[in-house]
Structure formats: C-alpha cells, structure tokens
C-alpha cells in the first residue's frame, strides 16, 4: 500500500467521527456543564446571573413539590409496570405458540399505540376520560356499573390511574415484543417434556417461562423506570400535572419552572438532579447487563 493511502487510513476515522463529536460537544456536553453552572445562580433567563451557591439546591430539597414529583412517578410506576410486564408476557407466550394464527396482525395491533403521536393519543384520552360525558363514564353508567361518574382526571388518585392506563396502553406492545424475543430463545422441547411429566400450562408458565425470561423482564423494568421518571407529554396534556400536583413528574416540574415561571437557576438544579438520577439508573443497568455478551 502506498504511503498516501496509509496516511488516509490514519486520518479517515477521525474525520468520520468528527461530526458526531462536534455536535455532541456543542449540543450536549457543553449544555450539561453549563446547566451545572446555572444551577448555582439566580437567573431569569435574560438578565444578569447572580451567584448564590447551593441556595437552589437547599430550596429544592425543601420543596414539597419536588419530592411529590418523585413520589408520583414511583406510584405511577407501581401502577402500570407489574401489570404491563405480566400482560406482556402472557400475550407474548400466546403469540409465540407455533399454532397461533394471525401472529403478525396481532403483534402489529398491539404495537400501533407505541408509534402513533403521543400528543394525538393523549387528546383522545382527554375525550374518553371526560367526567361529564366522556365515553368511559357514559358506557359504565349506561350498563349500570356505576351511579356517579368517575372523576378520571379530576381527583388525585384517579388522575394517577388515568396516566398509568395511558402509559400502559402505549408501552404494552413494545414490552411484549421484547419479551417475545426472550421467549424465542426457550426450547420448545422443554414445554413438551414438562407436559409429559404432567405439568399444566399454568405451571409451565410459572416454572419455565418466567425464570427463563427473568433477564428480559429485568431489562424491561429498567427501561420502564427511565421512561416513568421522564414522563412529560401524557401528564402535560391529560392533567397539566394536577389535580393538586398529583401527576407532577420531574420533567414536567423542570418544564414549568423554566419555560413558564422563568426560574432558570432553580430549574437547572432540578435538571442536575434529574441527570444524576438518570445516570444512576443507567449505571445500574450497565452493571446488571454487563455479562450479556
């Protein structure tokens, strides 16, 4: 090989990775560092920044709403994740059986809510869950299941349930797909053998399926944790974080403090805490799945 080509071989990779690194420095690394700096100042976004040390953090850790936002996310997580994984695994097992007809169609039907615009779906749920004449309440009343309308979006606990229902609706199909790939690694002989040994379907599900997809279930749980703490659009459109901040999430609080109240300094302290939280979850994820390959 000529030296000209050799030189190219040395330079080319740096040129190839440079667009990424330039964009990363300008639009990601510099902003996150800048964010840490702003979090130590009092700033409304346009005037002078006043350095105030840890005051924002002191205020944040004493802010009832901040802890409430973490608490709300945890409750929403508990409301939908176990149910989603359980249903996801059952549907995945059903679609995975080799005698199932229409696999492709069902798989797609469950997956559609995941890629359809969140904003559009959220507005449909606003209509469906309306207290006075939303479809859910109308149907429940007309078939005599309830006498008084359910305040889906107007009472703290129901609002959390509504957000959870919508998140479940959007992510069930996605998790089912991931669990299906986990199931495909389980040998069919195992079920046949279990059957010959007298195990029922339900027994096989609990003693073969669940242990063998444990890792995938864990993986889905980690993804859902990240997703739940980053929730924004669903509570923003369904409930605006209310009522009584019962569906306020960390990202929603960050948005309100920065782009509605213009407390950029305070909002940055939320951003930094959110960053640390997400980083911790990602590091745990890497630890747990390190031996994957």
């Amino acid at each position: 090989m000529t030296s000209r080509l050799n030189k190219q071989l040395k330079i080319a990779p740096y040129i190839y990775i440079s667009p990424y690194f330039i964009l990363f420095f300008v639009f990601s690394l510099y902003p996150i560092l800048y964010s840490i700096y702003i979090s130590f100042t009092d700033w409304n976004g346009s005037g002078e920044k006043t350095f105030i040390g840890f005051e924002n953090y002191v205020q944040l850790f004493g802010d009832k709403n901040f802890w409430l936002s973490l608490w709300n996310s945890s409750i929403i997580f508990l409301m939908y994740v176990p149910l989603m994984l359980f249903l996801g695994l059952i549907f995945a097992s059903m679609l995975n059986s080799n005698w199932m007809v229409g696999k492709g169609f069902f798989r797609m039907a469950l997956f559609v809510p995941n890629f359809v615009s969140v904003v559009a779906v959220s507005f449909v749920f606003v209509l469906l869950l309306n207290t006075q004449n939303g479809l859910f309440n109308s149907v429940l009343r007309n078939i005599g299941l309830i006498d008084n309308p359910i305040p889906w979006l107007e009472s703290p606990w129901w609002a959390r349930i509504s957000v959870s229902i919508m998140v479940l609706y959007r992510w069930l199909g996605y998790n089912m797909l991931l669990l299906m790939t986990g199931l495909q690694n389980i040998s069919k002989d195992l079920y046949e053998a279990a059957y010959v040994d007298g195990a029922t379907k339900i027994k096989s599900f609990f003693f073969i399926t669940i242990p063998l997809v444990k890792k995938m279930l864990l993986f889905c749980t980690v993804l859902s944790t990240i997703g739940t703490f980053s929730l924004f659009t669903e509570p923003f459109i369904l409930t605006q974080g209310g009522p009584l901040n019962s569906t306020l999430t960390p990202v929603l609080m960050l948005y309100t403090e920065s782009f509605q109240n213009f407390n950029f300094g305070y909002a940055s302290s939320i951003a930094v805490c959110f960053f640390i939280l997400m980083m911790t979850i990602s590091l745990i994820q890497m630890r747990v799945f390190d031996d994957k390959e």
Partner: protein
Amino acid sequence: MEKAMKLQHVKHHEGKRGILSVTTFIIMTLVSLATMFPLFWLFSSSLKDISEIFVNPPMWVPKVFHWENFTELFVNRKFGIITWNSFLLATTSTVVALVFCSLAGFAFAKYHFKGKNFLFIMVLASLMIPHEATMVPLFSIYKGMGLIDNIWGVILPDLANAFGIFFMRQYCSALPEEMLEAARIDGCTEFKLFRRIVLPNLKSGFAGLGIILFVKQWNNFLWPSVILRSQENMTLSVALKALEDSNNTPYHLIMAGSVISVVPLLIIVLIFQKQLIAGMIEGAVKG
C-alpha cells in the same frame, strides 16, 4: 410400553391444543380491538361537529361527516405548512443522522486509531445525558445563535445520536474485511470506499435505523414545543397543543389535526413494519 404412553399423551395434548388455540385467538382479538379502539374514536371524532363530541348517549359514528374540520385546519390554521414542516423536520433529521451515524459507526467498526477505545466509551457515556436536562442552557445558547423558532434548532441536537452509532456499528462490523481490502488495493480512496462500497451495503441497517429515527422525530414534542413559537414554524404535535384554548377548546379540530398527524405515519410504518420491529428489538437489546 412407556414410549406408547408418552405418544398417547402427546396426541391428547394436540387435541387440547385446538381448544387452547381458539381461546387464545379470541383473547388476542379482544385485546387488539381494545388497542385499536382509541384510534377508531379519534377518526370518528375528527368528523364530528363540536356539539357532538361530548354527548350522552355517545355518538359512535357521526350522522353527517363534517369534513369541514379539515378544511378549517388547512385554510385558516396553516396546517398545510405545518404538515410540510413535520415532513421536512423528520426527513432532514433522519437522512443527516443516518449519514453521521454510519460514518462514525464505520470508523469504530473497521479502523484502528489512537484513542479509539476512549472515544467509544465517551459515545457510550453520552447516552446517559438526558436531553431534558440540557434544555435550559440550550435555550439560552439558541437565543445567541438565532435558533429559537427555527426548525434547525430541533434538528441539530438530534444529529449527535449515540444510539445510532451503536446501531450502525453492528452493521459495519458485519462487512467482510476482504471486500474493503480489495477496494483499497484497486486504489480506492477512503472516502470513495465509504461512498461506493460501504453505503450500498448498509441498506438494511439504514432502513431499520431510519424508520426508528423518522417515527421519533415525527412525534417529537417537548423540545419543539419549547422553541417553535410562530404558527408557520410549528410541527404537527406542537400545533395540536397550540389549538387548545382555556375557554373553548376546539376538540373537533384537535381530533382532525391528530388524524393528519397519525395517518401518514401509519402508512409509512405499515410499509416498513418489518424493519421497524426488527430495528426496535435490535436497538433495545443490543444498544
């Protein structure tokens, strides 16, 4: 004897399968109906008059189809340009990101260079920076750069896509070394090698990553809603939210706008569903 018994068992098992598969089929049909129902309601509501949105008993299908909801959006609410913005945004950001991701993915897969491991760990670490945490400083940086109310302000941060680099690196690793060597021996420059030999061989990777990025950008909401201010610069998601009004929200128009946002994506996804599903799984499990 034992073998015969086992065979009998298996046969019995097969008979039971018939009942089981019918039950499974019925359950899956009901579940699919449930997941499709909100979409049905979306389409139905988009053709209603505002007075027919909240009524008891519920109106399943509007008596008269109010197509004028759509006319109103396109004629008076600038939804023509807004739809075009969404297309422009999603297409540009996908195409450019695919080029950048495949370049970097190829570099990390097939070259040996100083600092490669360190740089790759940096790409890995960058996945941990949530975009939400950079919004405040990015907003003030944008003010200085004139990127507020500019569609490029949405595109630029999304071009640095670490996930896409991982994704394309997988596909680049699979390219045979001999193919690259042969081209080099024939006197191909490195850039020509990338353009003529590598790019055409990454088609399935591009399809998978491309559809994922397109869907994501088409539905992108939080950051666009922060920076896109004037109606003629908005994307569909942002414009839908902007239709909301504290006194009198035109839900019939929001539903019609949602249909405009949902239908093109539904068509694209149905065409590329194999790639999307394969890409999603690959991206989640390997990325």
